């Protein structure tokens, strides 16, 4: 283990399960994962600003590349919700893009390797300046809670508050309610925890894997894992967005319903034209 100037031993690989505090603004602690989230937000906002200013009817290469997620996720949402896709696409796409960019921030050079000296528990320590947002459970849990609010609100919009509460808290037949209500609550809780832990676990494990490979190997080997992490980052973003969509679909279906709207809607309607017009 290398030693720093103060005589403290520093580990070869820096692993911290929670975001580390860089500085305080009053009582508010600013962590390195907040810096990662801020970078992801700035990148997304800049791209959105650029696209809104420079979008053309005949898209160029960059515009086509940026429109690809809209077309792909728009198609998936439209297949599930032919009449409501216009309201559902924006939050699903926002979740996808935010998670994607937040995951890719972790792959940038300097993230996790450039550190700052901070005083921690009375002694000096080196803390990475930037940590990918998804490698912090606070970020993934917050996103999962937003997804939870989304699918519950869609459940209420589709079935009405009374219908949603009845479906969640009153079983059919009613004498099963004492058993089914806790089951429903545990099932809803498992959704939030599953969404947040999956994303956090995958990105955090990826960060550790990259750090270990950088410490133990050299040259091309870490680059292979970097490539794998790029794939996993996109897959995890897609899984998070699609699961939110699936939960919305289940919430809007209700007990007696299914995806009935899908069977009533014509195969090609005005929305099809709108989706294409919105994409190009």
């Amino acid at each position, binding site marked *: 283990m290398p030693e720093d100037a103060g005589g403290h031993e520093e580990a070869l690989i820096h692993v911290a399960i929670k975001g580390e505090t860089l500085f305080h603004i009053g009582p508010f602690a600013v962590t390195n994962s907040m810096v990662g989230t801020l970078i992801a937000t700035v990148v997304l906002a800049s791209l959105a600003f650029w696209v809104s200013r420079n979008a053309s009817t005949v898209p160029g290469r960059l515009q086509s590349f940026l429109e690809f997620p809209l077309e792909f996720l728009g*198609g*998936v949402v*439209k*297949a*599930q919700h032919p009449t409501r896709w216009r309201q559902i696409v924006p939050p699903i796409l926002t979740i996808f893009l935010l998670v994607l960019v937040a995951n890719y921030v972790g792959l940038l050079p300097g993230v996790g390797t450039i550190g700052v000296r901070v005083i921690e528990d009375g002694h000096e320590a080196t803390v990475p300046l930037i940590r990918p947002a998804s490698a912090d459970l606070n970020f993934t849990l917050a996103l999962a809670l937003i997804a939870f609010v989304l699918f519950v609100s869609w459940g209420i919009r589709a079935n009405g508050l009374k219908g949603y509460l009845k479906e969640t808290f009153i079983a059919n037949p009613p004498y099963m309610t004492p*058993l089914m209500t*806790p*089951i*429903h609550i*545990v*099932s809803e*809780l*498992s*959704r939030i*925890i*599953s969404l947040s*832990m*999956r994303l956090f676990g995958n990105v955090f494990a990826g960060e550790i894997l990259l750090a270990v490979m950088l410490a133990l190997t050299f040259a091309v080997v870490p680059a292979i894992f970097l490539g794998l992490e790029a794939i996993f980052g996109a897959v995890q973003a*897609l*899984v998070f967005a*699609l*699961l939110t*969509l*699936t939960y919305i*679909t*289940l919430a809007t*279906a209700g007990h007696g319903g*299914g*995806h009935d709207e899908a069977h009533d809607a014509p195969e090609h309607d005005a929305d099809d034209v709108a989706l294409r017009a919105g994409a190009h």
Partner: protein
Amino acid sequence: MSTRQPNGPPERPDRTTRPANWGLVLDLGMRLGLSVVIGVVAGVLLDKWLGTGPIFTLVGVVVGIGAAMYSIWEVARDEWKPR
């Protein structure tokens, strides 16, 4: 998401519904385990708090397993509906 035909072999999901099914498959495996863990942890905590062990732990196991089964049922019931 339906792949079931009333009279005939199951139809392959089309290009637009397939991605949503991937997410569902990835999610179900995790929720099966998590539901039981949540039930047991809640039961153990309740028992510690009320000093009633092991009653709520056992109830938690039952509720957790029930929630895991319910997660599958919730997805499957749409597919079993007569069309």
